[in-house]
């Protein structure tokens, strides 16, 4: 599984990244390596900086110092859309969809760039077969086909979370980052979402922030523990379970 064995550069490599908001150092000397094809979970208490880490990697915010690499290429400093075009796609902890557009349109918009249609104003969007097929496939995958004409803003919470995943994977990105995809879901909804995530990210690199430890330990190949903006441990689920620092700092407490 590891990048070193396959000889390829890691999918994501975060090197000595710092992020300050004003005088407050939110992320301190962050180092993280996610191998190609790995399912990597980031856990840590609320406010540890998990979402901020996602924002730093996806280009939403720029690191104060340090560098981020995607498949070996330096991406820190690039715009989010440039990073996305290089094959990294992320979801948001707080649902972030196109509220007035239908479910179908939401997913289709996320398919357009990857299918090469870009800013085209000379093509009828309804007569692009590969766009239509891919959109239909993703709607099917996220079980929202029956809701395709509903404005995204009117979906139930769980449906919006599924749409959020759908938009994220629609471009076919090879590196997928999901920020608390199951937050606020019921137990049954979580189970469904996890099997969905497992299936849709088959063969891709996955970075996931998740609070449900049974999900984390069941899904992840490797886990990183983030506390106060610093990764205190990174390893296989077994290593993390046994790590005394982790026990002390995180797992010992009530899991969030």
């Amino acid at each position, binding site marked *: 599984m590891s990048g070193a064995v396959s000889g390829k550069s890691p999918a994501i490599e975060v090197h000595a990244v710092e992020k300050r908001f004003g005088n407050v150092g939110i992320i301190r000397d962050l180092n993280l390596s996610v191998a190609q094809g790995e399912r990597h979970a980031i856990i840590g208490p609320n406010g540890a900086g998990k979402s901020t880490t996602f924002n730093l990697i*996806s*280009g*939403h915010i720029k690191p104060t110092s340090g560098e981020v690499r995607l498949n070996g290429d330096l991406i820190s400093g690039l*715009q*989010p*859309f440039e990073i*996305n*075009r290089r094959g990294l*796609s*992320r979801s*948001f902890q707080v649902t*972030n*969809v*196109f*509220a*007035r*557009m*239908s479910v*179908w*349109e939401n997913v*289709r*918009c*996320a398919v*357009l*760039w*990857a299918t090469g*249609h*870009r*800013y*085209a*104003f*000379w*093509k*009828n*969007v*309804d007569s*692009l077969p590969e766009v*239509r097929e891919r959109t*239909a496939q993703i709607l099917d995958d996220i079980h929202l086909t029956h809701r*395709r*004409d*509903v*404005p995204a803003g*009117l979906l139930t919470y769980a449906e919006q979370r599924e749409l959020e995943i759908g*938009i*994220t994977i*629609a*471009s076919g990105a090879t590196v997928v980052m999901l920020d608390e995809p199951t937050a606020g879901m019921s137990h049954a909804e979580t189970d469904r979402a996890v099997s969905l995530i497992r299936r849709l990210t088959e063969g891709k690199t996955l970075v996931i922030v998740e609070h449900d430890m049974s999900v984390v330990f069941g899904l992840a190949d490797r886990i990183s523990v983030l506390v106060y903006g610093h990764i205190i441990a990174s390893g296989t689920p077994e290593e993390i379970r046994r790590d005394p620092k982790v026990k002390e700092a995180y797992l010992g407490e009530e899991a969030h």
Partner: protein
Amino acid sequence: MTAATTSSVTAKPAGENLRFYGIWLIGIAALIVLPQVFSSGGSLTSFSLIGIAIVFALSYNILLGQTGLLSFGHAVHYGLGGFAACHMMNAVVSRGWPIPLPFIPLFGGIGGLVFAMIIGWVMTKRAGTVFAMISLGIGELVASSSLILRSVFGGESGITTDRTALPKMLGWSFGPQLQVYYLISFWLVLSAIAMYALTRTPLGRISNAVRDNPERVQFIGYDPHVVRYLAYCFAGFFAGVAGGLTAINFEIANSALLGAIQSGLVLFSTFIGGTAFFFGPILGAILVTYLQLGLTNLTTAWQLYFGIIFIGIVMYAPGGIAGLLMMHRPLIRAGTLWTVIPSYLVAIVPTVALACGVILTIETVARYSGGDPINLFGIPFNPTSPMTWLTAAVLVVGGAFVARLTWRRIAEAWDRAATVARDRGYLA
């Protein structure tokens, strides 16, 4: 809010296709027969102005409704299109180029487009308030420059031209207003089709996404700045076409075309018509142009009425006329519309009484010092007579009191009908 701008028409059923093309064909047929039915010079002039206003409002909605950009300076492109068309017409005449009049609006469009391409990149860097403020500034800048740069804009008097001096096409001289009307209608149809088609392209769909959530767009591969810029250029082009048509219609372009009043009017038309549906600005442009032509003859306070209508729409029907109409679609489909109609009918009388009271009040205030008599739907009133004031007060107070009750009835009937419709699966 959904349908026209957002619905996902993949494989339309045959019936829907038929209806879609049917609506366009009916529109075109109406444009053709309209001057046969209303053939007076006055109505031809009105129709011509309405046609131009529709193109202009549709171009504005590329910004406001499709991309979520609130511009206070859209008339800049309209006016520059008008000037470009005038200069082109004069050049065609003086150089003897073989370009007939029907091609001139294209040059108006290019005029609007070129300016949009130049200023658009900086303007569309941000949306929201920043964009709105810059558009206001650019509008003022261009409007005041137009009075200073006399050689290009002709100063106060503007640039005049003679549309009949251009080469004839198909034997049409375009002297008579009827021929100008058909020329405008031709460009109206062409522009409307093009602007509708634009909404059905990848760029058009992503414009909607930028409108809804410019942040998320960046994470599906798109640069919202580029999307806004391209939308701005298209809007500038079609505004220029409308400006070119105006130049042909009046045979003049002056600084009034690109000023704040024009920018305000197009915002007003588009918003009143409804930005969420493609046809909204068409309704708005028809209504506002018609009101403008009608009201300016009837009352000096016409701008006040515009203001009241605008505030009313913003507060009570932010979806505009189109939004109000389309609200009824699920009820029609579910067959529950008939349950709300009686409450509408009941509400008409007190609402009209209230409106008359407001009109009477405004006209009394407007005409008190002059003493001009008021003619309200054929009934004369004297603005200095206490009887008039009493009538106005009774209409306003009584009308408002009863109207509120009937409006509440409408709301209740609506809730019931909408619930039934939703239960039958007709509401999103």
